[in-house]
């Protein structure tokens, strides 16, 4: 939040500049939310599990990066002289892979036995997992900020009056890459199996699809995307590293999911961007409105979510549940 304010107010601004810069930051923040929301939606779509532990998994992934890149220099230590950007990217990828593995383990141990149980009971399990993972992660990072050692820092790209942090550009690029990769994935053989399982588990099974494998794949992708979101949420200008607060930033991706619709991949991206832009605009334009109080930007996503739900109870793109007696 502080970093954002600095960037937004570093130069004297005309209203147009203020608007453009807020829009840029908003889209970048929205990209973070979209990454988190995507992982969440993929898990929900494939396995019908609302993953409340998503924020904790995101923070865990970011912590792995901080550990690999700043403490132990993995994998850079075995690779001789390589560019810091490359070595950091490798650390980040390794962290994402490790988080994906943890996602698979979580699915196998705690979610698989719950197939067929009521949705809320499974959601409660993930709330329990959230407590476990969050507490252990917080303890690992000593309850303080741990820098991620990223090569971009607080560097800024200036195009005329338009200023945007390098990390924010990277975030948006990563979101585009992830979006394209997912679009390809859902057309591939495995992806079609995932979609079939999402549509009807029993029918998918009857067609020879291993539903268990699909569950594992969905959780791996979901946890990996959570880690990506967590990493970018803890980079400047959003934050100065991974901290106990990171999990709560990730919590704000939930309204994005709901606004888009729990089971819509398209909705996750749209919802994420919408929430990000709304939050930054509220922070830019409403901070001077004193009666709104401090930190109003942080609850704008939730208020937006409630308004959307009152108009469209299944979100913007969510499938309406057909209810029978």
């Amino acid at each position, binding site marked *: 939040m502080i970093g954002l304010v600095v960037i937004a107010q570093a130069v004297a601004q005309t209203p147009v500049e203020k608007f453009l810069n807020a829009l840029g930051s908003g889209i970048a923040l929205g990209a973070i939310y979209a990454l988190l929301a995507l992982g969440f939606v993929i898990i929900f779509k494939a396995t019908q599990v*609302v993953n409340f532990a998503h924020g904790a998994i995101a923070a865990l992934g970011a912590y792995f990066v901080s550990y690999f890149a700043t403490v132990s220099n993995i994998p850079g230590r075995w690779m001789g002289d390589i560019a810091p950007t490359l070595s950091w990217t490798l650390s980040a990828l390794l962290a994402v892979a490790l988080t994906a593995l943890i996602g698979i383990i979580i699915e196998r141990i*705690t979610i698989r*036995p*719950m197939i067929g*149980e009521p*949705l*809320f*009971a*499974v*959601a*409660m*399990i993930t*709330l*329990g*997992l*959230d*407590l*476990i993972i969050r*507490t*252990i992660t*917080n*303890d*690992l990072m*000593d309850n303080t900020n741990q820098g991620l050692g990223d090569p971009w820092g607080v560097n800024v790209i200036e195009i005329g009056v338009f200023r945007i942090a390098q990390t924010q550009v990277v975030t948006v690029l990563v979101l585009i890459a992830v979006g394209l990769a997912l679009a390809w994935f859902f057309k591939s053989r495995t992806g079609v199996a995932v979609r079939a399982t999402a549509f009807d588990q029993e029918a998918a099974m009857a067609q020879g699809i291993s539903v268990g494998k699909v569950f594992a794949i969905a959780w791996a992708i979901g946890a990996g995307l959570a880690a990506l979101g967590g990493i970018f949420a803890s980079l400047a200008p959003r934050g100065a590293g991974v901290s106990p607060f990171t999990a709560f930033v990730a*919590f704000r991706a*939930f*309204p994005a999911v*709901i606004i888009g619709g*729990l089971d819509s991949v398209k909705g996750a991206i749209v919802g994420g961007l919408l929430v990000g832009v709304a939050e930054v605009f509220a922070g830019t334009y409403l901070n001077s409105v004193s009666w709104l*109080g*401090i*930190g*109003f930007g*942080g*609850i704008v996503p*939730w*208020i937006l*979510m*409630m308004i959307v*739900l*009152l108009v469209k*109870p*299944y*979100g913007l793109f969510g499938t309406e*549940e057909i*209810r*029978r*007696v």
Partner: protein
Amino acid sequence: MRGRPNLYTEYQSEMGLFPTTTKKVSIALLGVIALLLPFNALPLFGFLGDSGWMVLVNKSLIYAIGALGLNLLVGVAGQVSLGHSFFMAVGAYTAVVLGGEAGKTVWGLGLPMWIWLPAAGLVAAVVGVLIAPTAVRVRGLYLAFVTLGLVFIGLFLWRNLGKVAGGPTTGRPWPELELALWRNMDPIISFTSDGPLWWWLTPINWLPWVDIEEMSGHAKTYFFVLFFVVVFALVSKNLMRTRVGRSWAAIRDRDIAAEVMGVAEAKGKTQAFAISSFYAGIAGAILASVVGRMIPESWDLFLAIEFVAIILIGGAGTVAGVFLGTFFVILSPRLVEDLTNWLATQVTEGGTFAWLGNLFIRTSPDDYIGIVSLDAYGPGLSIFQLNVVLFGVLIVVFLIVEPLGLYGIWIKVRNYWKGWPFTY
């Protein structure tokens, strides 16, 4: 119908509060235990009357009030709510604005308890009614997210409404539990200060091993809260076995079918939200008053999760389960703490279980084995963190292994002994 307790010949007896002799006896026994508990007079469990344990017992009872309310909403009416801490906060802040002392930075009317306590429940109930239309429109997991949003919006409000909630890091003091006629008058009864034994409790001295003349402030708070717990449990039980509760259960089981049969869905959900919020408001007000000072951050998601966990661990939809769940969730952290400390002394004194302690506890910065560190030796969970983790593990394990909760375990044990020595 001797020996056939499950054979009912009239609807009246099936709906009865305590249908069987066993139930009547066990309720009476529970009553005696409840009377003896705060005076260290229970055989074997006398330690529960020590002030450290009494604080926890009181906390459990206060939580039980809130959990009874959430049980009506989640367990009976089937409306998933993660926003219970929000309604508790509404109750608590109503109480402090009406009953608290006014200061330079905070509002307070200084009214007596007989005004602020019912008002806390009523205001929370009104807020519940305002939220209910959302529940009619939004269902299932979407409702869980709406109530989750309430918690975050609430936290924002309490942080910014300094006049109501006090400073973000300091909070403000709550009015004490004492019954006075009007503001600034001497209290008729104080439920927090030590004093002589209340006259109506003197019959317990007839028991041969009991001889009590004084009672502590904790014991008085205990009886005060216990009164509300009993009243609220009875109301809850009565709601569940009569028309209102049955309409809620119908909505829970299949809302469209309920509507087709003539149950008014919107009305039922609104009732459930209102009554559950009333319970939450009262629980929040008493909790804050007993704790004395609460910061705005106390009404967070963790509190809400605790309540949902209490219901799920205890057994959703049952009054007995609520009590099992609360006592289990609130008292077990203390047991973990005591056990860890005992293991630590085993290590330092070289007792029989020192090896277990060595495996479990980090005793120095060079000790890399163990998951708990009693001092701040870098990695290693503190006892508080250990309890949070164990709490999470408990939720997960219970839901996987015993979805009906502690109440389900009790049913299994009971059914086993009913047919003993035969399997059925």
